[in-house]
């Protein structure tokens, strides 16, 4: 049930969402809501150990339990020829050797390498029967030493996770010009340095991962209902992994998806095992993760240890940056993580600043932890956090205000070629800064600080000026950098004889409001009411081509839609020209009406659509009947959203508790499709960033590598009572790289906010640095130490 307004909309208006009517009435359809005829249920047997050899697996008593249909082990899958999981990005180390990618199987065979790794799969008639039987599978483990810490993992005596990967190092990748950087440091007047951790996060989409897979023996084909950000990409991947005969033997359907944040973009072992099992038992198999499973196995985010230095001249101009990052991959390489830690991270390390020289080394390292992959921002938050912390240290070193140090170093002319591959197309960084400072009443801060001090509170203010890269493409460039998949998006627009419109795109909504925004665009272009437009996504039987939704790439799919609209309008012009007996260039189209000054006649869009199908008013040897247009849009460059976040905190020195009392942001997303929706994206992103800065932290026990934060009672999720109202404004510089001028907005909040929060905490405490999360305990210890010294 979708209820769209019966009026036309404009792109850029805050149109209320089309999808809400089903979601607020309980009529959303998520994968776990689906029951199929002959349904069976899967439960995984998971490793309780972080590192162990599997000596034996005894399934005999479990197999006798009520309702058990089949039990599969890793060896069963290997024997049946199931392929291991793929790595989606190829990197070479600085010495030219290819990255060492560990074999990652759907179910472990010889050894387990992190707590929660799936070892066996039980299929049963009911969910409870599957769980009961999974508990009865006996796995005989021989425990091995574990390693969690990144530095310990590359030490000479470290426990080694994979026999063929010495010192647990997947690669040492580099970017930039080290000699140029050395020369700049040699002549620098000042240097500032930092060592920091970017804390490991658990994505926590509220809908857990889920799959319901059905196999049809009669035509050897499969349908997979999957909560995923990229259902169409998963079709070709699962086809290949399962060894199906062709794409046409697999349909992937993603209905409503309850949040993703990157964690529903990889190909996961559990989903592959369940799909395999559906074929093995010849009945539909359903698995929905429990939250504990989500904590243990949804690809985690971030987890870097970085040392970095920034060289300055005597006026505080940035001369060069040198960075060395240890990136935790977890026990295996998840689909996109090699991209996340390289071209989505190190390329962004110069931020909004004109830094002539830069060099970064990134070491990808295996540890006995859950695999890491893209999480909201995916590399760019790590880069923004580093350069924005260094910027504040530079301000302290030079003795200028944190806004002033940024002003002195902003890039002011575009396009701007950075020393790290990317070419920024557009922006107004200082305008954005000024807009944010006005919104935050930056000038009035010191009086607020004094007022707080009178109440016994420590008040601080923090800035961050982030830039990121979205809408990535073109595909040819990405392939040259190591990409194993293309990055265009497609959009097909079908106009029906009565003038209603279907919009089919390979992007997939998981909260972004695509059904609304695509319809807004088409409504404006065709001049037809929103309720005549249906947006269709997430079913490979209906949409043949697409690359999904992640990396804030709405601009790519919407640009494809805009081009398809143009093609329809253009064909309509030819049809109307024939109807009116004029030349196409004598036909105008505006607000849904074709007209010709030559004849003074008009033809409405719906009349044209009818004529296109009737095929009676034009020569079909020259103009094909029907009204369908398809576009594949391959972006000519990335887009570079940017903005300034200003955070104000108050710290209670008695308890160490930090309260975010104000959070304001000015963002350049280029053209804003729907301000209401875009502001919502920023609210959510900023909240995740505040969460990272203050509360969220995935903690593994250093000895046992058990995940200590595996529930909502232990992991610091942002809650309604711990957040402020947000103040937002837009400061757009539309991009020339796509026809709509859009840059992307989905991840920006999570990129800009962590450094703004930590800069505010450091300002309040008068300290140089504190690692995230800035927990009450850490802050209390500092305050306590001071009061004891006083």
């Amino acid at each position, binding site marked *: 049930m979708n209820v769209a307004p019966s009026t036309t909309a404009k792109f850029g208006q805050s149109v209320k969402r089309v999808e*809400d009517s089903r979601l607020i*009435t309980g009529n959303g359809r998520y994968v776990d809501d689906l029951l199929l005829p002959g349904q069976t249920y899967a439960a995984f047997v998971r490793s309780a150990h972080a590192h162990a050899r599997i000596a034996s697996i005894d399934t005999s008593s479990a197999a006798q339990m009520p309702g058990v249909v089949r039990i599969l082990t890793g060896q069963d899958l290997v024997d049946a020829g199931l392929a291991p999981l793929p790595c989606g990005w190829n990197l070479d180390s600085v010495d030219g050797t290819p990255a060492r990618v560990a074999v990652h199987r759907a179910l472990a065979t010889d050894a387990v390498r992190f707590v929660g790794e799936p070892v066996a799969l039980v299929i049963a008639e009911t969910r409870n029967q599957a769980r009961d039987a999974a508990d009865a599978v006996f796995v005989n483990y021989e425990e091995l030493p574990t390693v969690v810490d990144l530095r310990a993992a590359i030490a000479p005596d470290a426990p080694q996770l994979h026999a063929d990967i010495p010192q647990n190092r997947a690669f040492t990748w580099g970017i930039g010009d080290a000699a140029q950087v050395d020369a700049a440091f040699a002549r620098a007047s000042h240097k500032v340095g930092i060592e920091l951790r970017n804390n490991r996060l658990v994505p926590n*989409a*509220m809908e857990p991962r889920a799959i319901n897979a059905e196999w049809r023996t009669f035509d050897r084909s499969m349908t997979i209902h999957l909560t995923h950000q990229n259902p169409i990409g998963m079709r070709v991947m699962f086809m290949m992994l399962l060894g199906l005969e062709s794409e046409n033997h697999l349909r992937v359907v993603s209905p409503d998806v309850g949040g993703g944040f990157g964690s529903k973009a990889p190909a996961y072992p559990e989903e592959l095992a369940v799909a395999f099992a559906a074929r093995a038992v010849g009945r539909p198999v359903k698995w929905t993760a429990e939250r504990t499973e989500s904590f243990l196995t949804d690809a985690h985010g971030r987890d870097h240890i970085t040392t970095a230095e920034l060289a300055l001249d005597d006026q505080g101009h940035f001369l060069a940056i040198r960075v060395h990052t240890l990136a935790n991959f977890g026990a295996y390489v998840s689909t996109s993580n090699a991209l996340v830690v390289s071209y989505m991270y190190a390329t962004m390390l110069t931020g909004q600043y004109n830094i002539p020289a830069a060099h970064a080394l990134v070491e990808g390292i295996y540890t006995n932890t859950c695999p890491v992959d893209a999480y909201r921002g995916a590399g760019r938050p790590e880069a923004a956090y580093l350069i924005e912390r260094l910027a504040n240290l530079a301000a302290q070193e030079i003795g200028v205000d944190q806004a002033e140090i940024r002003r002195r170093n902003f890039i002011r002319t575009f396009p701007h070629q950075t020393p790290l591959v990317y070419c920024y197309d557009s922006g107004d960084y200082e305008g954005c800064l000024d807009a944010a400072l006005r919104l935050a009443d930056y000038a009035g801060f010191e009086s607020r600080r004094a007022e707080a001090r009178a109440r016994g509170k420590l008040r601080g203010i923090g800035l961050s000026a982030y830039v990121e890269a979205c809408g990535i493409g073109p595909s040819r460039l990405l392939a040259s950098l190591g990409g194993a998949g293309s990055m265009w998006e497609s959009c097909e627009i079908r106009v029906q004889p009565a003038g209603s419109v279907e919009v089919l795109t390979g992007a997939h909504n998981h909260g972004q409001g695509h059904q609304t925004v695509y319809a807004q665009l088409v409504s404006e272009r065709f001049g037809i009411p929103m309720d005549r437009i249906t947006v269709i996504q997430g079913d490979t039987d209906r949409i043949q081509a697409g690359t999904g939704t992640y990396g804030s790439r709405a601009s790519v799919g919407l640009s494809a839609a805009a081009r398809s609209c143009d093609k329809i309008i253009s064909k309509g012009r030819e049809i109307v020209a024939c109807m009116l007996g004029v030349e196409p260039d004598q036909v105008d189209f505006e607000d849904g009406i074709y007209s010709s000054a030559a004849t003074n006649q008009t033809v409405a869009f719906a009349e044209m659509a009818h004529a296109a199908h009737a095929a009676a008013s034009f020569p079909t040897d020259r103009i094909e009947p029907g009204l369908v247009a398809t576009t594949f849009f391959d972006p000519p460059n990335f887009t570079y959203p940017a903005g300034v976040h200003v955070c104000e905190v108050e710290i209670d020195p008695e308890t160490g508790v930090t309260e975010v009392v104000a959070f304001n942001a000015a963002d350049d997303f280029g053209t804003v499709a729907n301000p209401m929706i875009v502001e919502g994206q920023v609210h959510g992103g900023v909240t995740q960033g505040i969460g990272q800065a203050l509360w969220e932290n995935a903690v593994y026990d250093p000895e046992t590598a058990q995940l200590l934060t595996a529930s*909502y009672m232990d992991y610091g999720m942002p809650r*309604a009572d711990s957040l402020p109202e947000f103040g937002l404004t837009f400061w757009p510089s539309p991009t020339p790289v796509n026809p709509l001028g859009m840059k992307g907005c989905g991840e920006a909040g999570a990129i800009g906010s962590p450094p703004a929060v930590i800069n505010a905490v450091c300002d309040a405490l008068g300290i140089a640095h504190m690692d995230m999360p800035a927990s009450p305990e850490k802050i209390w210890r500092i305050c306590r130490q001071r009061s004891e010294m006083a």
Partner: protein
Amino acid sequence: MTAITLNVNGASHAIDVEDRTLLVHALRDTLRLTGAHIGCDTSQCGACTVHIDGRAVKSCTVLAAQAVDSEIRTIEGLAKGADLHPMQAAFREHHGLQCGFCTPGMIMMAVDIARRHPRPDDATVRAELEGNLCRCTGYHNIVKAVIAGAAAMEGLA
């Protein structure tokens, strides 16, 4: 298996459940009312919130058999036909949802907040929503929606 009768959204349902069946599983799996969602396994997230005798309850904290003598209302029973409940309308109007997964629980909780606090302020709503997790919205628009929905329920909007 035990035979029980559940009164849900004004209708009576005679069903068989295992003794250990949680109310949320009876609603979702047996009655096929899938609006209440399961977002955690520790009764923290609130996505499964329904009303039992007019009070918001996390339906993962109740055995189905414990709810036999009660009136249960789920998100599916909140609107009157095509007429949305004022709280549902407020969530749409104020963009109080994105992916929609936490939304049924949020709305059922919000109706209960409005019952107990007819004109709640921002701090009250935030404190009351402490047991309902949302990962998309940052709560900003949910708080606005609850305040507006409560006002509409009072006939003030």
